[in-house]
């Protein structure tokens, strides 16, 4: 059984890049176009790992993490936070909200794969 990973991002190109990279590496990928949809998906199914963007309409990545972590089913599910902003404040906020790690966009496929392998196994 391949491990299932949820990618929450409003950018189709990022979602596609993440999906392709991870599927090639043998993961199953579910895509969600924004935080609200992502929250729905994450609550409905336990993923091996969740990757979320920060800048999204309706619900930011940070809000998504806070909302998801408020749900007990999120316990033990690692979340990786994607952001174009590398300033410490946001990173720390994401960490405090319950993200396990973060990546700065843009990133290479290899970088992504390394992170996913490390986190989801």
């Amino acid at each position, binding site marked *: 059984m391949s491990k299932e990973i949820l990618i929450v991002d409003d950018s189709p190109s990022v979602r596609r890049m993440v999906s392709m990279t991870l599927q090639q590496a043998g993961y199953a990928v579910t895509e969600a176009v924004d935080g609200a949809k992502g929250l729905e998906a994450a609550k409905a199914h336990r993923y091996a*790992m969740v990757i979320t963007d920060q800048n999204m309409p309706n619900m930011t990545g940070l809000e998504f993490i806070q909302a998801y972590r408020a749900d007990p089913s999120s316990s033990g599910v690692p979340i990786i936070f994607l952001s174009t902003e590398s300033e410490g404040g946001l990173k720390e906020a994401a960490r405090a909200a319950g993200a*396990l790690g973060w990546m700065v966009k843009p990133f290479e496929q290899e970088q992504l794969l390394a992170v996913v392998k490390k986190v989801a196994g």
Partner: protein
Amino acid sequence: MMDAETQEIFRQEAEALMEALQEGLLVLKETPDDLEVVAGVFRALHTIKGTGAMFGFSRLASFVHNFEAAFEAVRSGKSVVTPELINVALTAYDLIAELLEGGEPDPAKDEELTAALAAATSGEAPAPAAAPTASEVPAAPAEIKEWDLQFRLPPDFMEIGGNPIAMLDELREVGGETTIVRPLTDRLPSIAQMDTKVIYTGWQVILPGAIKENAIRDVFMFHEDQMELSIEPVHAAPAAPVAEPEPAAAPLAEAAAAPAEPAATAKDAPKAAKAAPAAVAQLRVAADRVDLIMDRVGELVIAEARLAAIANQLENEALLGVVEDIQRLALGLRDSTMALRMTPLSSIMGRFRRLSHDLAETTGKTFDFIVEGEETELDKTVVEKLTDPLVHMIRNSVDHGLEGPEDRAASGKPERGLVKLSARHAGAEVVIEIIDDGRGMNEEAIRKRAIERGLLTEDSDVPRSEVLKMVLEPGFSTAAAVTALSGRGVGADVVKQAIEALNGTIEITSEPGEGTVFTLRLPLTLAIIEGLLIGVGKERYALPLLSVEQILELPEELAGGTSATDVIELNNELVPVLRLRQVFNRDASASTHQKIVIVGANDTRVGLVVDEIIGTNQTVIKQLSPLHSRLKIFSGATILGDGCVALILDVIHLVSLGQEIEQRLKGTAA
């Protein structure tokens, strides 16, 4: 810096040496002329110096070097023990004790005491030997030998999907195979108070110094602020008083990577030692308690055999059933007790790696130090007693064996030399080899020196292998210079003594220009061995089963022979044969079903003609009395199930007897 456990071992060792030192000094106060005690004091100092240098106590080593010089003067008769010397020496002892405990006494004290020691042994006391470490260690910023990393993950780490195991794996990946990971369990609450989602364990990870600090920090990226993390560089050599360039990393409050300071290593020591009890979930038991258990297990095995004999006579099924159970339990108990005493050689390898590192620095020679078979297990006492000889031999290989890079290049060798330490089990022995690819030994020089020293006479016709062994004789040392590490010719005899005390042998093979191999063969001197019980006449003898290779029917053509020795052909090889009946002068008539037991040691074999093969047994080795211990053919005695005593045959000796026969036969043939 070595790990806390190794530190602890060093500490215990140093304590014992310090005790011997103090006692020796106090005895000398009463009997100043006792040269044996002087030698004992000298030896204690020498070992403290050597191990101290190896464990990074450089100030201590340098001071003890001068202390030792004073007693060298006494030992060589240039000076005498005076009350004044003893007083100064005792004060010096206190300084060493303080340094060992990680204290930082005023450095002026070292000089003051060194001068006082020199004054006390003056007359014609030599100028105190120049402080060795200071001059030999280049005054460059200290190289980072290891990173001592300690961390406790954020309390919510599991909750947010983190995987501590993956993190440790990642650290192992960063650090390579020498990475050491230890749990820190000091904050474990009682089970009732545990929250399954919280990590209570911390970890200590020792990583090689070659790694960049940033690579380590990367592993914790994103969590650093939420966790406790300390990354301390551990310096190889005593740092010169130059501020070390801080590794380019964002400094963290918890991980103030301390700049090097002169006493960095000494200061680290107590810290590491303090962390040890929490980190190591092991039980430290006094060795004599284990010995006591071993003794009692030995007695139990004998009693069990007697019980079995009685049960067999009575033919009582119920009793036999119980006997079988007891037998199984006794054997299990024996094995687990022996396992208690078995220690892999790896437990002392850390020192050798450190030693090779230090040697590379002090000698300026570049070489690879390779260890093979460090998982080989030996009785703990054997391992302990091996340490000093091995230290000496490795030093010797580097100091005298390996050439400098230029010489190597000139003789067409790769610039990096090679020193290899390999260990393996071979039958009832452990074979340890110290191999170098250096210049090899100069037989002529050794012969000449041995003659000078009165170890050989001009006309003695001694084979090459024996000449080479002369380097192990007391007082034989071809090194002209006295170095901090190699010392003053103490040690070579220590090697020989220690190996002989373990009933082992040393062989030296050396090819000029190609290198030298020291081969140590050590019997697995354990208190209980599997034995093969044989009968010769009415007597029974035991052989270590591991050295028995084959048992054959005695060929007819040999059956009638009455000489003590003979040869048989075995797999196209002539094997000398000893008729034990004749060797032991047993006059009872020979059995009609005599057998030959082929035993081997040192890759050579000898056949033993016996009357009867009785079977295997648990041989509990009892030492022979001093009166009988000179009978080399027996290595001990054992008590059999019926209460009789059987002597244990010494296979190494039997094999050498066989070789003598072979030589003799060859001689007559020629």
